[in-house]
């Protein structure tokens, strides 16, 4: 999976900036997308392209259980978020609803990858290749159940053993 990076070099990007509370009443996915990241980056909607990835620091998606957050990002075109760590509800919403891939990365990838870099994510090899910089980094493998739900295409398609 190939895409370009939009980088937010900070920790604790919370659901209130990913999709502000006033839009919680909105359940139209396309409309939610127009307000994605509004609390942090008002230009996000105009610059994001289909297939892009977000790169960020620790505890991405902390705060509310609003599924609006992965929905707004996913319907903006974001296919994966690469972060040093994720808040639990955002992580499971992203996976169970099959909205986007939450990829846990190390400090090396976080520091080396820049805004605009083109990267290839290979979840089979647990590797991220930076095509722009010709570098390769490890990603943290998914746990068994997360891997299976992703493979199934979301919780509703997953058949427990």
């Amino acid at each position, binding site marked *: 999976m190939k895409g370009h990076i939009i980088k937010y070099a900070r920790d604790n990007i919370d659901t209130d900036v990913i999709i502000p509370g*006033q839009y*919680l*009443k909105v359940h139209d996915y396309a409309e939610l997308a127009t307000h994605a990241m509004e609390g942090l980056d008002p230009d996000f909607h105009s610059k994001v392209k289909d297939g892009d990835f977000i790169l960020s620091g620790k505890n991405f998606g902390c*705060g509310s*259980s609003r599924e609006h957050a992965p929905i707004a990002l996913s319907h903006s075109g974001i296919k994966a978020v690469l972060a040093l760590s994720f*808040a639990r509800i955002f992580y499971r919403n992203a996976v169970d609803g099959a909205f986007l891939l939450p990829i846990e990365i190390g400090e090396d990838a976080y520091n080396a990858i820049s805004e605009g870099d083109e990267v290839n994510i290979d979840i089979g090899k647990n590797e991220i290749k930076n095509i722009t910089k010709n570098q390769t980094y490890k990603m943290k493998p998914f746990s068994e159940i997360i891997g299976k739900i992703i493979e199934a295409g979301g919780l*509703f398609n997953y058949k427990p053993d």
Partner: protein
Amino acid sequence: MNIVEKILARASGRDSVAPDDVIFANVDKAMVHDVSGPGVIKVFDKLKKQGIDVSKLWDPSKVWVAEDHFVPSAEKVSAENIVKLSNFTKNYGIQKHFKYGMGQYGICHTLSHEEALVLPGEVYVGGDSHTNTTGALGAFACGLGHTDVAYVLLYGKIWFKVPETIYFKLNGKLPEHVMAKDFILKIIGDIGTDGGNYKTMQFGGSGVDVMSVESRLTLCNMTTEAGAKNGIVEPDQKVVDYLTSRGATNISLIKGDENAEYSQIIEYEGSEMEPLVAKPFSPENIAVVRDAPSVDLDKSYIGSCTGAKYEDLEAAAKILKGRKVKIRTEVLPASISIYKRAMENGLLTIFLDAGVTIGPPTCGACCGAHMGVLAKDEICISTTNRNFPGRMGHVDSQTYLSSPLVAAASAVTGKITDPRDLP
């Protein structure tokens, strides 16, 4: 096993579980509100298109519905969501729908205890992150997103990774001017907003034993701000009495084993606790009230599942009695039952005499929805739970989180004020 492991073992039909085990737990109770309900309806619509049967719920008697975030309807989109919610409960035969304007209603997490909807030992999930609140009754209470809640409503179960548990032990009772809110702010300041991520935060010790059920609810409520999967207090006779007085029967007390394991035990001395605030823009950004910046406040907000239970209003009233507010102050009781008790016991008169505006039960401005949201550059002190940028309104507004005692004292002076320092 500790209490959470015991609950999850029972719910997954196993003799025992340990941290990191992945289980499917049978759910005892589930909740949606006017944000997650329409979200679940949207998921049902998608599933229908995929040919998945969504014609009936696993057990409508175990599901209850709250109207809280955008009520009374703030504008037409929220009004339509309420209509959707009403049609949903009617179509699926859900009896427990707490409608505004029709008797008891309020914030979902407040109803869970005021109406004794959740009992000790149960697995309770809700379409809201602060579902953690209800762990104070001795339940495994966990917040989930729309897809997960839709799965629960259809199949009555959901997967969990068994969390490890951090045990927070409070030795001795909190001083009179310090509330449970100060204790949980202290903890979040110490462990950070990801300090409890994926974990259980359990509270105990002599200081928690002597706490009221409502104070324990405040502790568990803000485990969400530390990222925790759930918060819990082992239930005792106080919980039994509390729930029994609200109509519950067949309550069984579940406790962890003597040799239960915790990943960490962190101890606090009650006598050392002080009134605190969380400064903008994170609940972990803690300062002692007496060292807080001398900002001119625009508003004091006493509301939400965190800070508008009966005891919270009582604390605010103790401060506001015979005093006047210097800044805009709103009190929004968290449920009609609390509103009524506050009226019967004279608290509302105290608030009105002090100059406070009293609002209806609603999540309101806590999540920036409506009813007193903040303008650009406005600064608010609030008994709520989050102060991220834009949380209560404009992205350039600021929120300081505090106990109701501090929010009320600050309302009187217009500055962040320790209740002990009021003239």
